[in-house]
């Protein structure tokens, strides 16, 4: 016969180990679910950007991103902008974008705050297709 205190100790240990294992397993499942939700959300956002681009006359597979920033430099086919995060594309930073509009240099000045629209399949081929004052 085991004394009562040993029985209580063994039961407590069993409970502790069981709880720990359950918590760890559950935590892993929650993390996996979080990743799945993030991936699904990114997919939905991508489809939404493709739908917007398609509605604006883009080719199949192209997406459209909206950004806000300040013009830092203007070249004939390049626009350098310090921008906020462009969701689904870039964090906040200064980036040079290809300009699809050749009239940008006449419309804009260095220091202008702008809202702009980018269109492309990935960052490397994304180009500014619309600009307006912020």
């Amino acid at each position, binding site marked *: 016969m085991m004394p009562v205190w040993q029985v209580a100790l063994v039961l407590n240990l069993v409970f502790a180990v069981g709880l720990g294992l359950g918590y760890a397993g559950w935590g892993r499942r929650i993390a996996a679910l979080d990743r799945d939700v993030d991936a699904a959300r990114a997919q939905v956002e991508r489809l939404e950007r493709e739908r917007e681009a398609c509605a604006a006359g883009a080719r199949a597979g192209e997406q459209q991103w909206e950004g*806000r*920033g*300040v013009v*830092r*430099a*203007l070249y004939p086919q390049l626009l*350098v902008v*310090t*921008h*906020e995060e462009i969701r689904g594309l870039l964090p*906040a930073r*200064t980036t040079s974008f290809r300009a699809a509009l050749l009239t940008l240099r006449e419309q804009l*000045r*260095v*220091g*202008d*705050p702008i809202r702009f629209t980018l269109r492309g399949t990935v960052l490397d081929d994304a180009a500014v297709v619309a600009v307006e004052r*912020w």
Partner: protein
Amino acid sequence: MPGFSRRLGEPQRWDVINFIRALGAAERAKTLGPQVEPGRAWLVAPDFTVSVGPLAPTALRDYRGRRMVLLVLYTLPGSRARMTELARMYDVLWVMGVEIIAVPTRASSTAIAELGASPPVLFPVMTSGAADIVATYQLLATGPHAELLIDRQGYVRAIWDDAGGAVQTEVEKLNAEKSPPPFPDDHVH
């Protein structure tokens, strides 16, 4: 400061304490020169908000642990040649781990445009809140143009009261520091 409790509210008492601390730091800052002294970091750079146009503002302390900061207080037209030089060397300084933050001594919402388009100035240029920064930092560095090199931990390590600073040399010294100072404790007693 219990003796002032009847005359000043708590925020005002803290303002007085901070002002006295700033004056003390400014007096000691006179010993800081244009050359980094390895292992000697004591002057914590006063924090401020970095505002570029309508973009979401950041703070100077956000650079801690990531990049050194060359804080440039400039006055046009006198500083134009130096600002052009800094614009040209920005890519090199960036690779060396330095961000430049330019603050006009005469606050202007069109500060970026006033610096001109060529060469392009791609570092942050303050378009609002400059007056407070200038008032604070001119306690440490006088003159219409001044540059302060702030290390990755947030300490002012070199001060130039003119536009001729050999920034790269001093940045190399900071990059070569084997045991950088600890991050400052901003808690005030």
